[in-house]
């Protein structure tokens, strides 16, 4: 057992942190989000070329840094600390994950393009009716010669406006909620029949409603096994969930640090409000939540490579993270008093991100149910 980081991993963290400190301050981010396109292709380019982090979890043969889940966690943690909206999760973790785990013929080329910052993925999986059930799909892909015809609507595709490609889950068979009959496709955003409605999200990202209308796909659009892609999807989503937990660790740390700092400065009734025992204990409870969340994120990150424990650990970590996001986020605002309610202070923006992370890929209830199923078996 060992919880230490290698020198390379520490260096990766320092590299990302120092770049973001210089190029992604709160004010720089604020300016970025205020104008179109609402994200920074320049920062993305720097991630690819200057920092090389878009290859963090890919093998060296593919041009990557030879890392894996731990490297994803390290990068995501820093993304969380700086509230980065650029699509590391969608592109490297999720897009990269599908390419790595599916045995996809074109994987090598596409991973090269990811690493170079040229291809950007967004994950179009959720549907308006489906809540957090990955298999609840009305989107269909029908065989058409050697290729496919795609029809359907995807909801709240995070990073849709930044993407060059969508990864799309669709039904090639089975009923609306069946595990069988689910397949995964790569669809170019520019393909005929693909339309999007773009909008900002409450936490500063951009997202799209995506409509597929008789979109013709080649045979090579299929990623993973036809109709049997649920295990693949679950694996990649587990990785995305744990990477999001990593991001949350960064967000939570900033919420806690920011609150400590503010309460030490802010004076009421002739003393810093950090002197009030009730607020001290609140901050201790926030601290405990942050520490527990970090512990669970480490655990789940390490267990991503253990196929037996992977899903259960990811669900447990997301539960812990979800609870921490709510408790730490809400109390950070409360302890900032009125100032926490203003757009001009960073703390509210961390709170908004924490709130959205709480429901990312599923609410705390969703992941509790998943954990129970995996740990205790089917309910009555």
């Amino acid at each position: 057992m060992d919880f230490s980081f290698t020198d390379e991993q520490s260096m990766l963290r320092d590299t990302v942190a120092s770049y973001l400190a210089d190029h992604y301050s709160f004010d720089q981010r604020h300016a970025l989000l205020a104008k179109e396109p609402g994200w920074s292709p320049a920062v993305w380019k720097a991630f690819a070329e200057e920092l090389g982090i878009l290859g963090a979890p890919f093998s060296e043969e593919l041009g990557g840094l030879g890392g894996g889940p731990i490297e994803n966690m390290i990068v995501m943690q820093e993304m969380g600390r700086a509230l980065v909206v650029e699509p590391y999760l969608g592109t490297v973790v999720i897009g990269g994950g599908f390419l790595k785990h599916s045995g996809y013929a074109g994987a090598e080329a596409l991973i090269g393009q990811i690493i170079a910052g040229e291809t950007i993925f967004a994950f179009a999986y959720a549907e308006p009716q489906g809540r957090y059930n990955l298999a609840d799909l009305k989107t269909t892909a029908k065989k058409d010669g050697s290729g496919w015809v795609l029809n359907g609507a995807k909801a709240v595709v995070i990073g849709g406006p930044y993407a060059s490609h969508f990864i799309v889950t669709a039904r090639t068979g089975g009923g609306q909620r069946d595990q069988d009959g689910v397949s995964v496709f790569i669809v170019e955003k520019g393909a005929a029949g693909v339309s999007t409605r773009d909008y900002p999200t409450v936490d500063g990202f951009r997202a799209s409603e995506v409509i597929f209308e008789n979109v013709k796909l080649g045979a090579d659009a299929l990623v993973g096994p036809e109709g049997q892609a649920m295990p693949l999807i679950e694996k990649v989503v587990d990785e995305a969930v744990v990477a999001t937990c990593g991001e949350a660790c960064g967000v939570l740390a900033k919420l806690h640090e920011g609150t400590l700092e503010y309460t030490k400065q802010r004076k009421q009734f002739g003393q810093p409000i950090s002197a009030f025992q009730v607020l001290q204990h609140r901050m201790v409870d926030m601290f405990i939540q942050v520490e527990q969340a970090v512990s669970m994120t480490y655990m789940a990150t390490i267990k991503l490579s253990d196929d037996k424990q992977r899903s259960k650990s990811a669900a447990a970590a997301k539960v812990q993270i979800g609870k921490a996001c709510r408790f730490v986020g809400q109390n950070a605002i409360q302890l900032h008093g009125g100032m926490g309610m203003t757009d001009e202070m960073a703390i509210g923006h961390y709170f908004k991100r924490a709130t959205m992370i709480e429901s990312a890929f599923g609410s705390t209830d969703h992941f509790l149910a998943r954990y129970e199923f995996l740990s205790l078996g089917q309910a009555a």
Partner: protein
Amino acid sequence: MNLDFSPEENAFRQEVRAFIKANYPPALRAAQDAGRPLTKEEYLMWHKVLAKKGWLAPSWPKEFGGTDWTPTQKYIWSEESAEAETLPPLPFGVSMLAPVVYTFGTEEQKKRFLPGIYNGDVWWCQGYSEPGAGSDLASLKTKAERVTADDGKEYYIVSGQKTWTTLGQYADWGFFLVRTDPDAKPQAGISFLLIDMKTPGISVRPIITLEGGHEVNDVFLDNVKVPVENRIFHENQGWTCAKALLAHERSGIAGVARSKRNLEKLRSIATTEHSDAGGPLLSDAFFRRKVAELEIDLTALEFTELRTLAGESSGKGPGPESSILKIKGTEIQQRLQELALEAVGHYGAPFLRDLGHNAGIGPDYADGLAGDMFNGRKTSIYGGSNEIQRNIIAKAVLGL
């Protein structure tokens, strides 16, 4: 002990319901349904109807326009108003300033200010909080020096900064707490001034809150000249007015009727939304349970408020026990907002303000729920944070 309404009370309920139905302004209803910020005119539409009817200010003494209703009638009025989702009259004049004026003001001040409040001709705003003083209101720094001007009259020259001034961007007048004796103990040197917002030296700057809205403002005062006769009560004794006002601010804050209405909405959303298993979300064991627990909590709050009101009608004022109503009321409101956001799943994320309501992205009821939840965090902060309310109960009720 009984909970029954008398036949007279039931008749009153019918009267109220019919009046609201017949007179609620359709333009205001449409604006509310559209979910966008209201205009100044819209804010006042219902206010003016109520003023004409004589139902604007049930709590005021009869002589100034109050309705002389029993506590039960007031309770029925607030239930029906919430049920019909009417827009409550802005509190700044009606609920906050007016009691100070009719309690502490001179006859002349009552005649001068109460009609404008009642009729909605004058929009009031509050100048209490300051950047340095949050819950510690008495530490305010805005200073007012008394001078005799060239016209031979006496004025206060007021300078300083106020903040969290809600809807101050529309205000004609404001009521301000200012320091008239810098050497006295914090609470002893404060006076209560009414200031015309058009006076030179006043500027109002928007504060954008975290959900992106503009409701509150900073107000800067730079050598603002205020006639001495605009002071309510004695010089340096404004804290007495401030305390009375704060107690009034707290007592309506349980918001039981509004929360009941929002609980109905939540149930309706959860009936439409699907659970992961595909059925209505309200059939999901855990979502049901959260709704049920909230409903029970709200019932407990309702009956605690009724007990408090009963105590009040038998002579006790809105005492420090009302801090319970503030604490539980805001906790329940916030919990409702959290659950509504939870209920809509992915569609909690879109921020559609710039696209307009009914943009066709997700269900209409989902639009703005995240903003409501973010904005709702303020309720446990303002009006004396919930931590301060606990201090009040500890001291005043438990004798700690």
